[in-house]
C-alpha cells in the first residue's frame, strides 16, 4: 500500500473516520492487516506493524489511527499524531 502522498500534496481535503474498539477488527482487515494469535498487529506478510512514531507494538486496545490512504499506523498516544503533521502535511 502506498504512503500518503496525496495528503501531503493537499492538506485541506482529507478526513478521518472515527471508530471504537469493536470496529478495530473490521478496519484493520480493510487495509489488509490482521492481529496475530498473541494479539499484535501484523501486515499481510505477517510482519509486526508498530506505531510509526514511537515504535510501540500495536494491539486492539491501543490502535490510535491509520493515516489517510496509507498503511501508517499510530498508537493511542495523541502526541504521535504530531509526526504526521510534521512529516506528511504541507504548511
Amino acid at each position, binding site marked *: 500500500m*502506498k504512503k*500518503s*502522498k*496525496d*495528503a501531503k500534496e*493537499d*492538506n*485541506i*481535503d*482529507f*478526513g*478521518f*473516520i*472515527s*471508530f*471504537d*474498539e469493536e470496529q478495530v477488527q473490521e*478496519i484493520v482487515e*480493510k487495509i489488509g492487516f490482521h492481529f496475530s494469535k498473541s494479539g499484535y498487529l501484523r501486515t499481510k506478510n505477517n510482519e509486526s506493524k508498530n506505531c510509526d512514531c*514511537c515504535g510501540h507494538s500495536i494491539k486492539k486496545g491501543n*490502535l*490510535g*489511527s*491509520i*493515516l*489517510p*490512504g*496509507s498503511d501508517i499506523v499510530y498508537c*493511542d*498516544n*495523541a*502526541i*504521535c*499524531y*504530531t*509526526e504526521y*503533521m*510534521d512529516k506528511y*502535511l504541507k*504548511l
Partner: protein
Amino acid sequence: MGLPDTLKKLGLGDLLNILKINVDNSKNFHFKDTTININITGRDQIEYTPPNTVEYELVRNIHEKLYKKGVSGFVRKDLVMPRIGMMATRAKNKEIFKKYKERIDEKYYRAMIASYTIINFENNGDYTTSNELFTDMVRKFPIFGRHIYNFCRSGLMEGFFWNKLGDIIYQGAEEDIIRENFKKIFEDYVDFYPHAIWVNPIMSFQDIINEIAIRFNINEIIWLDIYFRGKDKEELADCIIEFIENHEGIHLDSNETYTICNSFCRKLGIRKDFNKFQNI
C-alpha cells in the same frame, strides 16, 4: 464548506444524490453522536452518525472512496478532538510553525505542535482535553516536553526565540547555516533557559531560591521571570517576594496575576542591580 461542497471538491459529487435522498427520507438525520469526521483541518468539520442500515451503507461507500483517494484515514473516537485541535492550532499559528520548521530539532518541533494545541484547548476552557494531551506529551517527551510547553505558553517562541532566529537570518547566512546555528542555540536553551523559572508542582521555596541563585550568580544575567501556576502556589509566590525584598541587590520589577483555564497564575519579574548585588 459543508459536506456537499467537500464531496464535490474531492470529485465525489456522484454521492450527493444518494446522500440527498437519505437526508430527505430520514427524519432522524442529525450531526450528533458521530462516527464520521470529514475535512477536519481546523476550518471545517463535519460529523455524522448513520442512524440506520441504509445510511450506514452510504457512509461505508463514502469511506471507501475517500480512503482509496488517499484523503481519509481512521481515528479512534477519543482521539478525534486532539486531532481536530492540532489541525486547528496549526492553521491558526501557521506563521510560527513555518518559522521553526526544520530550524529546530524535529522532536522539539513536534512538542511545539502539541504545546500550542494544549494552549489552544486551555484558552478555549477545555481543561479536560488539554490535561489529557499534556499527560500524553510528558509521557512521550519526558525530558523536554514541559520545557517546550513553557516556552510556548510564556510567549518565548513568538518573542525571545523569534528574535534570536531573526538575528541569525539578518546576518545573511545560507539556510543550512541558519538551521545548524539555530538548532544548537535552541538545544542549549532547552537544556537551560536562564531568564525564567517555571515552578513545577514539586518545587519548594528553597528549590526556587537555588534556581534564582544559579541564574543571578552568573554575571550577565540581570533579569528573570518566575511563573507560578495553581492556587496552592500563591503563598509560595508571596514568600519569594518577601525574599526578594529582603535581599540586597535584587528587586521586584513586576508582579502580574492572571488565569489559565480558571487556574490561578502569577508571574514575578526580578531584576538584579549590578552595583549592590551579593551572591545568593
